[in-house]
């Protein structure tokens, strides 16, 4: 079975990894890079727990081959905080009680991050639409939507 050696940037670090062709990006992130923030909920594109930014766009990392990431830039939930400072979304999720068991949270944060990158001040409908592919069995979603709205406020305050 052929292996492929790929070079990619993950959370700002250059990584060189050798992977079998059928390894998913999700498996590589968790097993090879030991970044276990990204979760495996369904391995079939349905739950969104594995969502990462792939060249700036959110993808289900269980639906991408690791070899396809050669030359790519990937951001996982571990890459959201900078200089011991949480991302406004992380801060807002904590403050809003948007986290219960936490299994969906990394995917929720990444999908929300992607949303705010393309629409810095989203409507409630836009938030819900952006999170359609992220399932949560705990919170009932209301606090997650609140969290995204709060993050917009936190980001605006820190810019003032």
């Amino acid at each position, binding site marked *: 079975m052929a292996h492929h050696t790929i070079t990619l940037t993950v959370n700002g670090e250059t990584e060189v990894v050798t992977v079998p*062709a059928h390894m998913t990006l999700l498996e590589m992130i968790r097993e090879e890079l030991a970044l276990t923030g990204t979760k495996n909920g369904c391995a079939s594109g349905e739950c969104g727990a594995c969502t990462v930014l792939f060249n700036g766009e959110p993808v289900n990392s269980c639906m991408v081959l690791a070899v396809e990431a050669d030359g790519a830039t990937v951001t996982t939930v571990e890459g959201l905080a900078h200089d011991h400072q949480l991302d406004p979304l992380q801060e807002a999720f904590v403050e809003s009680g948007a986290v219960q068991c936490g299994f969906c949270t990394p995917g929720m944060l990444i999908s929300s991050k*992607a949303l705010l990158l393309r629409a810095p001040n989203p409507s409630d409908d836009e938030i819900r639409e952006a999170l359609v*592919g992220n399932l949560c069995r705990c919170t009932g979603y209301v606090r997650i939507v609140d969290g995204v709205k709060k993050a917009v406020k936190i980001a605006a305050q820190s810019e003032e």
Partner: protein
Amino acid sequence: MALNPTPGLPPFEYIKPASLAEASAFLAEHAGEARPFMGGTDTFVRMRDKAWHDKFVVDVKNLEGMRNITFDPQNGLTIGAAVNMNQVAASPFAQEHYPLLVEAARSVASYQLRSRATIVGNICNASPAGDTLGASILLGGVLHVYGVDGERDEPLSEFFHGPGKTNLKPGDIATAVHFPLPPADAVGRYIKLNRNNDGDLAIVGVTVLGYPDSATASGFRFKIALASVAPVPLIATAAEDILANSPITDDTITAAAQAAMDASTPISDTRGSAEYRKLMVRNLVKRAVSDVWGKLQG
């Protein structure tokens, strides 16, 4: 045996050809054990479920032109095979001239799935539930195909033969889907009935495109495609004829909706029974045609 609810993919080889010619030759030589992929959102699920057993997956999405989306005011829109659904939905040309295609693309799964899933993959996969198939057919879509015998065009109106069955042959690679300019003042609508809004396939999907047409008795032409009610995307021709031949009234629309229902031959599955699907065809065709009719009248 330990239960593993989320198994990995079975082993296969990953091939990244340097040209379409190389890709096509490889696919032809390995007919039945190699497949091209774009977003892989059908491919990887089917392989994981052990429904597909390919030894090779052939990654052609980085070949020249595959990621281009171009609009020509005379000729229309050309969407490279590897352009994902979010890129189509965000294209100002698609939004302005082909809003029906945008509406259909946006109904697929979730945002993150759509940043991988492609319209060409949806077409080549040929699931009767494919959300963008109806719009692609009604808008006169033509698939550009590169095969072992060279390039050819496949009009989508004659492309589908059954679930997963199309005019594509081993060695064929779809490079783009092209849409001519839509008829003047056309209005479209896609109504997708599903159990929830999270990446669920259509129980029934109704696509309608209507536009003024001086050649018909009613002065209008309606085109209607139905998803998930037949082995292929179903064009409801009897319903279309009713709307062409009689003045458009509530009664005409009701008669057309009934004709669409009568033409449907759905199966029963976990998403809905055949009876339910047929009734929903009637109700949703009525709703979609009424919506389009309302907008056509301004």
